[in-house]
């Protein structure tokens, strides 16, 4: 998480790490970009409704798109190649911009092989289930448990019942999922990655819950560590008085 204020305006800018969980969490990568909707979706078991619909801004920029289209989602793994670190920016209000650094599981959740690194310092999480598959809610519940065990205690978790567009095939009642979410202190939305319904609302609701106020007291959060990408500071011959401690 990093918060900075632009010195030339009163704009506040904060960055948060968001993790996505749930078998078809990629579907939720249906994000609003630059006013144009682009959507990523993925194969789930027996799902024929999923498709990749990408707005102009993204088309052609990524090998992922090609793989998506070419492979027609016949391989779950393929669907995540190169797409594990997306960012999405949301303007919360006139003076506050929030950037989500979105980590997907890179397929490591498939065999329950998710690395602890994934939960590390996550500020928020979206756990997705499929309203047309009763078992997917149980799976989502186990992910919530895992998050509560492994992640920050202040993590904001949102439960998203996806495929709202397939209401006719619904197996999970809204009231049941909502009650579970309330009990467990989760945000709750039913979404459709296909139509985009409630997707922005979901991200905005998370953004509003984030601890902006405490974070913004610091002018700029300096990175805790050292920057390995920084080139060598000086040549060894000139390294007099290198030690400062």
């Amino acid at each position, binding site marked *: 998480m990093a918060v900075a204020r632009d010195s030339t305006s009163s704009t506040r800018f904060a960055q948060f790490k968001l993790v996505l969980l749930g078998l078809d969490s990629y579907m939720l*990568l249906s*994000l*609003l*970009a*630059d006013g144009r909707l*682009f959507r*990523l979706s993925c194969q789930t078991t027996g799902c024929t409704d999923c498709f990749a619909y990408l707005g102009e*801004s*993204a088309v052609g*920029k*990524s*090998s*992922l798109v090609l793989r998506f289209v070419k492979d027609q989602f016949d391989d779950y*793994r*393929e669907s*995540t*190649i*190169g*797409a*594990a*670190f*997306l*960012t*999405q*920016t949301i303007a919360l209000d006139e003076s506050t911009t929030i950037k989500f650094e979105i980590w997907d599981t*890179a*397929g*490591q959740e*498939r*065999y*329950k*092989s998710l*690395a*602890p*690194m*994934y939960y*590390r310092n996550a500020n928020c999480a979206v756990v997705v289930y499929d309203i047309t598959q009763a078992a997917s809610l149980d799976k989502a519940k186990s992910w919530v448990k895992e998050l509560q065990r*492994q992640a920050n205690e202040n993590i904001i978790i949102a439960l998203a019942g996806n495929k709202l567009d397939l209401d006719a095939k619904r197996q999970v009642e809204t009231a049941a999922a909502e009650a579970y979410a309330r009990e467990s202190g989760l945000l709750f939305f039913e979404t459709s990655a296909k139509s985009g319904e409630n997707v922005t609302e979901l991200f905005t609701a998370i953004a509003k819950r984030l601890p902006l106020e405490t974070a913004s007291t610091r002018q700029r959060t300096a*990175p*805790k*560590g*050292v920057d*390995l*990408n920084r080139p*060598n*500071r*000086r*040549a*060894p*011959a000139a*390294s*007099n*008085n*290198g*030690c*400062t*401690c």
Partner: protein
Amino acid sequence: MDEQYDVIVLGTGLTECILSGVFSVEGKKVLHIDRQDHYGGESASLSLTQIYEKYRPGEQPRQSLGRDRDWNIDLIPKFLMANGELTNILVHTNVTRYMEFKQISGSFVYRDGKIAKVPSNEMEAIRSPLMGLFEKRRMKRFFEFIGNYEEGNPSTHQGLNLDRNSMNEVYTKFGLESGTKDFIGHAMALYLDDDYLTKPARETVERILLYVKSMARFGKSPYLYPLYGLGELPQGFARLSAIYGGTYMLDKPVDEIVYEDGVAVGVRSGDEVARAKIIIGDPTYFPTKVRKTGKVIRVICVLTRPIPNTDNADSLQIVIPQNQVGRKHDIYIAMVSTAHNVSSKGHYLAIVSTICETDNPLNEITPAMHLLGPVLEKFVGVEDLLEPIDDGTKDHVYISKSYDATSHFETTTDDVKDIYERIEGKPLVLKQRPADDEENFTAFE
């Protein structure tokens, strides 16, 4: 799992994870399996509960140690050289973006019963309590020689030929005392024993330069360390591999390596068989194909205050050169703490390690234990160092070496490169991964 892959990797130690990442990035279809339920293999960082399970089964962690989740205890004590090859690989593969690194605060050496900072340049040599006045001048001249040395300019060579003269001869040229040689050879060139003295000086000079350049890069010490422990390194490379399509299966038993005509063709787990022409793995997966080269003792110590006489450093390395304590191999102390998110508040984690020379290794490390001050908890492990008997070109089984007793990852990355070359028949050349690889869908910046 019943599928054809290009490469199957067994064990999620750092060596295996780097190779897995490299091969996935190159477009190979990789299956990566670990029989354990966590990442890292022998190079994992464990929680308190996991450490007790491993070293003291049945016992509960002491209450005062605090929350389990605050602990990331390394099994193998190593640091990254700021200018070393692992840093280079991390930068080239962009794995740096999954992790944060912090400096180790101090690099110390033991001489005549005391510890002092390792001087890394002329100025520090002048101030160092490690040497007398005249020796300081000699040391200064030695540093000037190292710093000014240019391969193509014989006037900077001071009559020495690094490929012909031994390091002993170089030391003699500058008239350095044996105690000074100890800290140059062991705390800077980071040799574990004195075999280097009679070998051509070039490698030693290169190692000293690596130390000096690493020191110059960030300032406090030449060493870097990932927040949340060394176990983050294999996880980072595993993520890289997964992003490029690698399949990960933890907690998956490996029952058999399947051979056809003496050549490995796959791996069986239960009644599933995954097939591949290349099998890579750590020595624990191939007990009949490795030999023992020695034993290492590693003692994980929990302290409640910093190590005495180190200016309360929150992290450090202390090298005890073998000569100083009448041994053949150096003893290392590596200490990290809450500053690196590896222990709960008010606790320090020091690992003492050395290559065993007797049947009573715990006795061998006494000089190091004396330096630590009071120790709250101690977990002792003695492990075999293993290496493959064959290079894998015949049976297509490519086995890594155990993590050795050196204090850094240079030998680990050497092993990575060696295995790669054994498999591909050409040296590993890392290409810079495009910075925006994972941000192709960035809405706007």
